[in-house]
């Protein structure tokens, strides 16, 4: 291993050095400052003669005399089953005063793409116990379903609720020997307070035992954030596909990750794409999100719930936009519902789970699931539309039918979406609440539900009671 003292330029998180031997692209670099501190970095650009190095821990204190060592390998994550229950920093070093980690293997953190031919299509229902998700936007194993939120909204509570309650119902599907659930938590640039909130909850509920936590806090180096999710996902893949765990990966906050990407792009003087984010951000995000999935012949699975806060709640901002194009749907946390006190404030209309249709129905959840959710969507959308109208013309001007839809929309938010962060509803309960609501509407309005299901679940008396409502 050769050591150089040939730094020519330092700019933002980048260091340029002259070399006289070839250096591989993406190789790991150690830079030792004059006072003996060692910083790590990665080769971003390698030409014969010079290399550009991106440092993870900032360039402060590095000078022209600092020495540069190339380790001759790309970045690796030491993986072992013993990682469960451990808390690591954003670069993968333990910070919980526990014993040293003895790795089984060291894995390249830039995971290879899963061959689409080798994938197993995800269709096993995960019950999160949250009606707005289970009933309307069902999560399945191997899916990547982000939470789109905004600053100041309780997305963390929702994520914790999912992490706590997620199970695969016993009777669902053909029972193999049950694999265990594990949670991998990758935090990028979250505040110490938020981190405490997560850690307290993990410890209180005993979830930490089956978790691996990666913490890059708001005051940790920003560039390190580009590595944290890759360490988390490498660990997840190892646990899922080598050890047979069902791994739920929660990544928060992807917005901070993208900011870090932009910072590096700007330092390299790249041609920027929309809003200054690099043109390759789609590819870069895909290399993270696409690491969710199942593989034929393997028991385990990687399910991802990335959380991102949309700058000024704008879903067309590049970060949520590119994410939505890669992930299989999104769960939208809504500011209005939140101020109404709905817990969790999930707005189901713009939410979507693309893999829902294959994960529900007879033998998976319940035969009427698809119809109920379609019908509720249509009815709630209609009620929402009418709310605008009511503001102008008042309720009296509307027909009886319209009034029923308005009541439906109100009760849907109050009874179906609203459940509190500590209530765990199973899928039967969720669907039954759904039927209570649908029974407010006249039978012949239910054109998306099979007739036999109407026979079975529709309760007549509800519809009478409603007209007397206001």
């Amino acid at each position, binding site marked *: 291993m050769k050591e150089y003292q040939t730094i020519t330029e330092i700019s933002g998180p980048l260091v340029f050095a002259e070399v006289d031997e*070839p*250096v*591989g*692209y*993406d190789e790991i670099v150690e830079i030792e400052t004059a006072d003996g501190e060692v910083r790590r970095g990665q080769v*971003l*650009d*390698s*030409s*014969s003669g010079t290399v550009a190095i991106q440092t993870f821990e900032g360039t402060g204190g590095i000078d022209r005399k600092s020495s540069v060592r190339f380790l001759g390998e790309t970045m690796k994550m030491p993986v072992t089953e013993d990682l469960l229950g451990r808390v690591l920093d954003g670069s993968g070093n333990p910070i919980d005063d526990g014993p040293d980690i003895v790795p089984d293997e060291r894995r*390249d953190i*830039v995971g*290879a*793409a*899963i*061959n*689409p*031919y*080798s*994938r197993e*299509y*995800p269709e096993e229902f995960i019950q999160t116990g949250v009606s707005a998700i289970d009933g309307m936007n069902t999560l399945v194993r191997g*899916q990547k379903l982000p939470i789109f939120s905004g600053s100041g909204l309780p997305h963390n509570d929702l994520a914790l609720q999912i992490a706590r309650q997620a199970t695969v119902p016993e009777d669902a599907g053909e029972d193999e020997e049950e694999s265990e659930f594990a949670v991998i938590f990758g935090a990028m640039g979250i505040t110490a307070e938020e981190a405490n909130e997560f850690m307290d909850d993990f410890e209180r509920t005993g979830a930490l035992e089956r978790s691996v936590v990666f913490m890059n806090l708001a005051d940790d180096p920003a560039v390190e954030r580009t590595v944290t999710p890759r360490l988390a996902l490498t660990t997840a893949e190892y646990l899922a596909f080598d050890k047979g765990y069902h791994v739920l990966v929660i990544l928060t906050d992807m917005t901070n990750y993208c900011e870090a990407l932009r910072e590096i792009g700007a330092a390299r003087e*790249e*041609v*920027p794409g*929309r809003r200054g984010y690099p*043109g*390759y951000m*789609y*590819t870069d995000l*895909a*290399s993270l999100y*696409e690491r969710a*999935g199942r*593989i034929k012949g*393997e028991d385990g699975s990687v399910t991802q719930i990335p959380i991102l806060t949309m700058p000024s709640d704008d*879903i*067309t*901002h590049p970060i949520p*936009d*590119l994410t*939505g*194009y*890669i992930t*299989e*749907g999104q769960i939208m946390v809504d500011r209005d519902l939140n101020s109404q006190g709905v817990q969790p404030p999930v707005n189901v209309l713009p939410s*979507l789970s*693309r893999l829902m249709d*294959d994960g529900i129905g007879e033998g998976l959840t319940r035969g009427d699931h698809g119809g109920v959710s379609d019908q509720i*969507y*249509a009815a709630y*959308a*209609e009620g929402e539309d009418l709310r605008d109208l009511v503001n*102008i*013309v008042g309720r009296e*001007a*509307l*027909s009886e039918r*319209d009034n029923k839809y308005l009541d439906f929309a109100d009760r849907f938010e109050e009874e179906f979406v609203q459940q509190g962060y500590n209530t765990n509803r199973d899928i039967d309960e969720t669907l039954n609440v759904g039927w209570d609501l649908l029974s407010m509407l006249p039978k012949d309005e239910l054109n998306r539900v099979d007739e036999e299901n109407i026979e079975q679940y529709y309760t007549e008396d509800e519809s009478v009671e409603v007209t007397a409502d206001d």
Partner: protein
Amino acid sequence: MSKATESDVREDGIIESVSGPVVTAVDLEARMNDVVYVGNEGLMGEVIEIEGNLTTIQVYEETSGVAPGEPVESTGAPLSVDLGPGMLDSIYDGVQRPLDVLEEKMNSAFLDRGVDAPGIDLEKTWDFTPEVEEGDEVGNGDIVGSVPETPSIDHKVMVPPGTLDEDETAAVVSVESGEFNVEQTVAELETGDEIQMRQEWPVREARPTEEKQTPTEPLTSGQRILDGLFPLAKGGTAAIPGPFGSGKTVAQQSLAKFADADIVVYIGCGERGNEMTEVIDDFPDLPDPQTGNALMARTCLIANTSNMPVAARESCVYTGITIAEHYRDMGYDVALMADSTSRWAEAMREISSRLEEMPGEEGYPAYLAARLSEFYERAGYFENINGTEGSVSAIGAVSPPGGDFSEPVTQNTLRIVKTFWALDADLAERRHFPAINWDESYSLYRDQLDPWFVENVAEDWPEQRQWAIDVLDEEGELQEIVQLVGKDALPEDQQLTLEVARFLKEAWLQQNALHDVDRYCPPEKTYEMLGAIKMFNDEAFDALEAGVPVEEITDVDSLPRLNRIGTTPDDEAEEFVEELEADITEELRALY
């Protein structure tokens, strides 16, 4: 991808720099677009720029760990695909490496690097039946025989274009039936040229044709809103832009399943891995509505998911359209779906920015529009050089950032394509699928396809359609008023129009892609359903004129059955509609 055929690969070139998928090399003797093998692992790449002694290469595989000083070898041949029997029922990556073979060779579910595989199985033998006799004169592109490639498709073996001079013919001196593999000679010409089943073609070059013709036949899709309102022609071009979650992929997949093409080439360009898996899982089990055989028997899949190397994403649309053109040359109608062309454009942008080219609009390269039009121009209804007629219809999904259609990829695509199916987030949110907006969408093929519909479906097809369009237009205008004053403030006839429009939207335009029956609606049924709604419209307005209030008209018992026509099996539909029409008429007339 085809292995370089020449064995004298010249050892030359040294890597100068590496930056992501872009590698530069010095002392490399290669032409533009030649395929090269990069580094000690022999990663596949393509020459994209030559400047002095410096050659720039885009690499189709991950470049981690590749260092300056490693060798670069040129194959001396441009990026080509292997054309021959065995392409159907296959799934390829962006440079035509079969993914199942890669899995086997790499012995892993993850894609490794530096592994190459031929696009078609070189060992497998096919049962060749000659279609010419010894002594027959053949020219470029002429069919010498065929092999049963799948239960649905006979693969024609053709004289590769360029074998003879243009307009030159040569006599066949020997041709034999029997079992051959793709590299064995099946026919020999007097010029000494030997014809094999396999031929190669550079992907960036269109295969030659005799003449492009005006398409007059529709590519029916079994989707009511498409066949009924915005039809696509065989050999036509269409774009489906829409924000995420609006159902682009479902629409593309429905087309791939039900379009009445002979061959379907489905390109998953930079999209989700699980979606491709769904296609791989579904297609072998689904029957082709035309032949009843498995859908895979007419399908070639190209899967370059978003996390696979970006340069291969750039090339995958070319790989796809070259394969499509090959089947067109045999006289087949080919439908090509590219999902999504935005990812392809982004791949161009990414490579362009690594080359530090001067960017055009929104960072896309200045040649974006040229590349897009080049691609769509390869579609069309053609007279082939061997005299057969075939078509390639190209349907490109577009994923505009934020659903904003004013961005460069959508705009440049719209300047070329003649059919525009605009997906709408609002419709998708209320689960109105397919979420195609009927106000914004258009098809410029409508008029040239009308004669076909008149002849094959119903004489008053154009009039019925126009009626539906008028009602939907009127509804759009009325809705604006309703938003202000409420529905009950409208005069009764307008209220009735709204009700009719509701059936048009809910019963006719909406279609459930997941329902076993409703997912495919033959044009006849599309027509009958529309007819039933029109009939209700006429009867209802008669009743209204006779003084029956709107509430009573819309309260008729049989009316909700209009919503169930779509899910009624095709062979019972006609009877169901007749009965329904009779009931509606009877009940309405009983009111006055």
